[in-house]
């Protein structure tokens, strides 16, 4: 599998797609999110696996997003996600609140190709009350006479999973380490678009030490190299988050004007650089 450019990878995400993406502490596709802003993506439906952060807030602020399904949106230490918060208050975002294990469960159902899976908890929560697509049914394995209502969650198959991995190999296998929930998202999604720090020779699946952290090329539609592609978030043990930059983002993005300033400086500036490199 030959890597394509970051801008070409962004072009593989059609407007309106249901896009699964990881939060800041996981394998965030920050560079790809900036490329999506540059390409002017519209109507994206974001799915947090299981929550969202910087990349989602950026896409929301740039007007790329119609809908968000997530268990939270947060910048972690840098505080609330300002563009998300503003959009919710303005009512300009369709928002489907979930709870982390529900998202894991819906993706695992899609991974297994079953139409639904049950989950404990949730009964009596307003999350459930606002999810007409979730059902409550009696547990069919409850002892006779017992009530035991349980929530049934439908399989959720994202159109695309995007994430930033530590490496890809020549076959298109990518290494995500212990972030197995991202492997599940890749399995559940129709296609995965992956940025990586670097491409290594050989086949990662033939190295027994590395294989457990691999997502097979079977699931990967395209790969682009994006060095420090998780920045300003961190990546596994490769680099730490850039807390100062995230704080700057959080401060600027408090207002529309500040957000535009941020984009001009850190997102759109990348366009000419990318064009020059292409």
């Amino acid at each position, binding site marked *: 599998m030959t890597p394509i450019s970051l801008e070409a990878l962004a072009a593989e995400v059609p407007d309106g797609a249901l896009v699964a993406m990881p939060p800041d502490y996981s394998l965030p596709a920050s560079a790809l999110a900036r490329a999506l802003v540059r390409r002017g993506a519209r109507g994206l439906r974001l799915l947090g696996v299981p929550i969202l952060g910087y990349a989602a807030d950026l896409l929301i602020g740039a007007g790329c997003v119609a809908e968000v399904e997530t268990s939270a949106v947060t910048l972690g230490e840098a505080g*609330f*996600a300002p563009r998300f918060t503003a959009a919710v208050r303005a009512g300009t975002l369709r928002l489907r609140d979930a709870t982390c294990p*529900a998202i894991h469960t819906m993706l695992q159902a899609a991974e297994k190709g079953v139409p639904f899976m049950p989950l404990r908890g*949730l009964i*009596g929560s307003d*999350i459930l009350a606002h999810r007409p697509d979730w059902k409550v049914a009696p547990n069919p394995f409850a002892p006779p006479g017992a009530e035991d209502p*349980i929530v049934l969650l439908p399989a959720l198959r994202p159109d695309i999973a995007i994430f930033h991995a530590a490496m890809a190999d020549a076959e298109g296998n990518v290494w995500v380490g212990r972030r*197995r929930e991202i492997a599940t998202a890749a399995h559940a999604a129709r296609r995965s678009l992956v940025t990586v720090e670097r491409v290594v020779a050989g086949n990662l699946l033939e190295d027994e030490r590395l294989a457990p952290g691999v997502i097979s090329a079977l699931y990967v539609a395209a790969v682009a190299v994006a060095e420090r592609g998780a920045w300003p978030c961190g990546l596994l043990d490769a680099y730490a988050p850039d807390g100062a930059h995230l704080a700057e983002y959080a401060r600027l993005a408090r207002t529309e004007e500040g957000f535009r300033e941020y984009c001009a400086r850190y997102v759109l500036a990348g366009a000419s650089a990318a064009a020059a490199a292409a």
Partner: protein
Amino acid sequence: MSAAAIRPEERLAVAIARLVLDPEAPPARHVAIGAASPIPAAACFLVRALGHPLRVSLQQRRTANPFSEGSRELFDLAGQGRIDLFFLGGGQIDGQANINLIGTGEWPGREARFPGSFGSALMYFLTPRTILFREEHSPRVLVPRVDIVSAPGVSPPGVYRRGTAQALVTGRCVFRFHPERARFSLLSLHPGETVESVRAATGFDFDIPAHVPPTPEPTEQELALLRGPVRETMLEPYPEFCARVFDRKSAA
């Protein structure tokens, strides 16, 4: 440092540690703690430093975290009954121990939006014990009825639930929760607080025993452990907290 005044965070950590060790509560062998909970983490590390066997799993560490199944392992562990104790907070908490992590005003937080529910709507049901923790103790946070229920404090009979809140710890006091009547009672008052000051700062109604003791002061031993081994353990996962509370920065 050893002669320094007791900081409020130290007091809260000790108060939580005593709840963790409450012999009347179900045993706590394994506690999971979220990324944004340095005071509960300090409390649990203190319990360990006091010699009690307690496994402490910190979530969401980017590296060297205790999980190998990614972020779903915490919830699977809870499902398996392998997490005995969890901590939850809330943008709002009400007198029935309902918590709201979503927002205020109309759904889904048109007045003020919080980040979201995270895993609370599962963890609150499947963990035998939850300690609610919120430093801000004001009528804005402790409300008669949460605007939005992220996770309910109690569940009707027939709904599968392994546990409820054990207590609510705030910057002013400790409340004990009574699931059978879905009400809090005042357990102890932090220094400077009275029943009246707590009542004035609390939006919900709660029970007041005839005698409400002060929250016990940290002992010399507890303080020494907090400022010694606990601080060392906290340094890597909670560097900013350590810098602020223990005047100690990571060498890194």
